[in-house]
């Protein structure tokens, strides 16, 4: 039979060629890979691409909840008209490195039972520990997936710490809201997928502070001395000083930074601590008012329902973090399956509902608790979003200007 243009073999051949070119792999290397990890694993991306090419593209609102083929029962092929294709079976393990309490209650368990992949979920207490670990060998420190802040991505890409994502393995990327499809730090989401985003304002206990607070000045108020906290994050702290002075939180001007340092030094004697655990400190009552992330406020309410939160109109930080695959990943297929899984509408909604951080997922919005989507403090409308500022990556020479003053402040 003469092969036609849409004949499965032709499609396969075409996709294979494309895949090899993209990955800069020779056929010989592909054969070696097949020998090493099995045809199923090695050819999984190609099969996925075939399926994507073969079927009509799914509409965004009816996003298919799983990676093509992976959830199909082992005996069935993805589509009866395809030529015999190996069912892609990802690696059996997955190593994830993330914050604690930063994912839905049973997301990991669900993923494990759905795909039969054993997940090792290690946690770090702060972003700096994370970066030290990921960069220790330049390839991710042995992990497959991690969650860096967006400010880190440009440098991570340049340094080869991240693995380029295979769009064929992450069809749920179609669920992303339009503004997240090509963020400035990673155009085209080639190396990362957005995870959650947030605003940074401040939270307070109205039982202790009956005032209606609206401005950053509240964090310099002598009445709350010894019961006030700021986040232990140099960029965020300097940003607050910047907003109070009308300066950019991404400034590299020494005079600007000196001015910020001056008012931060005025603030320091009033502070009780620079905290990593704003949730704990506010709910325990040690802090009456604290610099805080929006999702953290949502978790504070669980224990202290009356806690208030505000994003001052003079300016605030908007940030997001990402999901990435590390370049040294031993289980890259499983890693991308995981990312795809978390971009699923229901899974993303589950995550958000548990931890209170909004995701970039348009399809998930209908499934998120209206208490979150309806709350302007957790889900600000575009008009407010436009006024918020993103913290940008700073090269070492510029970051040093901040570090020098931050250590001076803290000492």
């Amino acid at each position: 039979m003469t092969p036609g243009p849409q004949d499965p073999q032709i499609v396969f051949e075409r996709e294979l060629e494309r895949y090899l070119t993209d990955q800069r792999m020779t056929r010989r290397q592909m054969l070696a890979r097949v020998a090493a990890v099995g045809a199923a694993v090695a050819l999984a991306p190609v099969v996925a691409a075939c399926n994507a090419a073969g079927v009509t593209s799914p509409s965004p609102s009816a996003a298919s909840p799983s990676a093509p083929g992976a959830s199909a029962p082992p005996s069935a092929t993805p589509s009866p008209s395809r030529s015999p294709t190996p069912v892609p079976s990802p690696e059996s393990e997955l190593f994830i490195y993330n914050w604690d309490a930063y994912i839905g209650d049973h997301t990991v368990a669900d993923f494990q039972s759905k795909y039969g992949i054993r997940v090792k979920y290690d946690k770090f207490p702060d972003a700096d520990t994370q970066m030290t670990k990921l960069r220790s060998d330049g390839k991710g420190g042995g992990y497959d997936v991690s969650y860096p802040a967006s400010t880190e991505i440009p440098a991570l890409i340049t340094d080869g710490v991240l693995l380029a994502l295979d769009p064929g393995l992450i069809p749920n990327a179609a669920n992303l809201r339009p503004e997240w499809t090509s963020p400035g730090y990673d155009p085209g989401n080639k190396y990362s997928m957005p995870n959650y985003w947030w605003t940074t304002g401040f939270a307070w206990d109205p039982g202790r502070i009956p005032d209606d607070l609206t401005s950053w000045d509240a964090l310099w108020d002598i009445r709350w001395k010894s019961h006030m906290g700021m986040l232990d994050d140099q960029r965020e702290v300097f940003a607050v000083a910047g907003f109070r002075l009308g300066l950019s939180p991404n400034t590299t001007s020494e005079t600007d930074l000196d001015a910020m340092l001056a008012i931060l030094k005025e603030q320091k004697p009033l502070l009780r601590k620079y905290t990593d655990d704003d949730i704990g400190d506010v709910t325990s009552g040690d802090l009456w008012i604290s610099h805080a992330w929006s999702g953290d406020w949502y978790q504070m309410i669980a224990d202290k329902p009356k806690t208030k939160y505000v994003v001052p109109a003079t300016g605030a930080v908007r940030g997001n973090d990402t999901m990435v695959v590390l370049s040294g990943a031993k289980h890259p297929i499983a890693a991308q399956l995981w990312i795809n899984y978390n971009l699923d509408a229901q899974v993303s909604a589950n995550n958000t509902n548990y931890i209170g951080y909004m995701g970039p997922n348009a399809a998930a919005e209908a499934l998120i608790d209206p208490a979150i989507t309806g709350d302007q403090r957790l889900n600000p409308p575009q008009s407010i979003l436009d006024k918020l500022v993103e913290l940008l990556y700073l090269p070492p020479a510029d970051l040093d200007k901040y570090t020098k003053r931050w250590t001076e402040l803290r000492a």
Partner: protein
Amino acid sequence: MAAPPTPAGAAGVNGTAGAAGTTLSPAVAAIRVPFVNRLAGIVLILPGVLWLALFFLAPLVIILVVSLGTRDAGGHITLANPGVQNYIQATRPEYLPAFANSLRYAGITTILSILIGYPIAYWISRFGGRQKILLLILVMLPFWTSYLIRTYAWMIILRDNGVLNSILQAVGLTNDPIVFLNTDFSVILGMTYGFLPFAILPLFVSIDRMDHHLVEAARDLFASGRAAFLHVTLPLTMPGIIAAALLTFIPAIGDYVTPDLLGGAQTTTIAKIVQVLFTSGRDWPYGSALGFLLMVVTLAGTLLALRTLRREVLA
């Protein structure tokens, strides 16, 4: 005295042994140490020295080299311009308050540990009777639970709405919660608590070794209780006090975790600054330099103390 060349046998004739309580006459001490004995000594220490050389010194040298480097535009460590610029920068006067904090906390902790540890060690030694060791082990028992968790327990106790404040408010001693946590007080309390066993052990060893008949003899000679203590007990147990002081002060200076968990905005230590430089500042060369400075200062102080007290402490 033809000793076969084995470490044990050869070690029979010693150079000097200078612990308080056992001294050799100069004649004995002057016995030449035969070559075999020296060889035996070297064989004994060789495994340990090799291990330390490989897994401690070699990495340390690497970090020393890093501390002489800088970072390039991409943030990677480079040795293109080696020099001591990091060390010069590390001696910024702005860091003095943190350094002062470290010294202050370590110093007060050491003094408190000895002041508290001595009576306890004395009590166990004199009144422990047959259960001496059990009582000593009971002192160490908290030490074998996670030190982090014990520090965390202090957080529960000292919080504004914690156990201590609840008790104080219940008995009416105060109406509003007192701020205990995140202060100098909580840091020193936590550190003393953590280092107390380090002090009690050497104190106990020293006190227990002392011959109490000497105290009795002094009392028989009409010395008062206090005089007996000051002129007999104290000098004889001084080696233990010195050891306790060193074993407490040295780790306390570099303690990062306790001030981090129990401290606040005003209690920053130099160890925290080093940590900030490494992690938040992403500046490994600079952080290494400051870390080395801290180490050199601590080491110099220690060697100085030891040189003047060499015999009593380590011999």
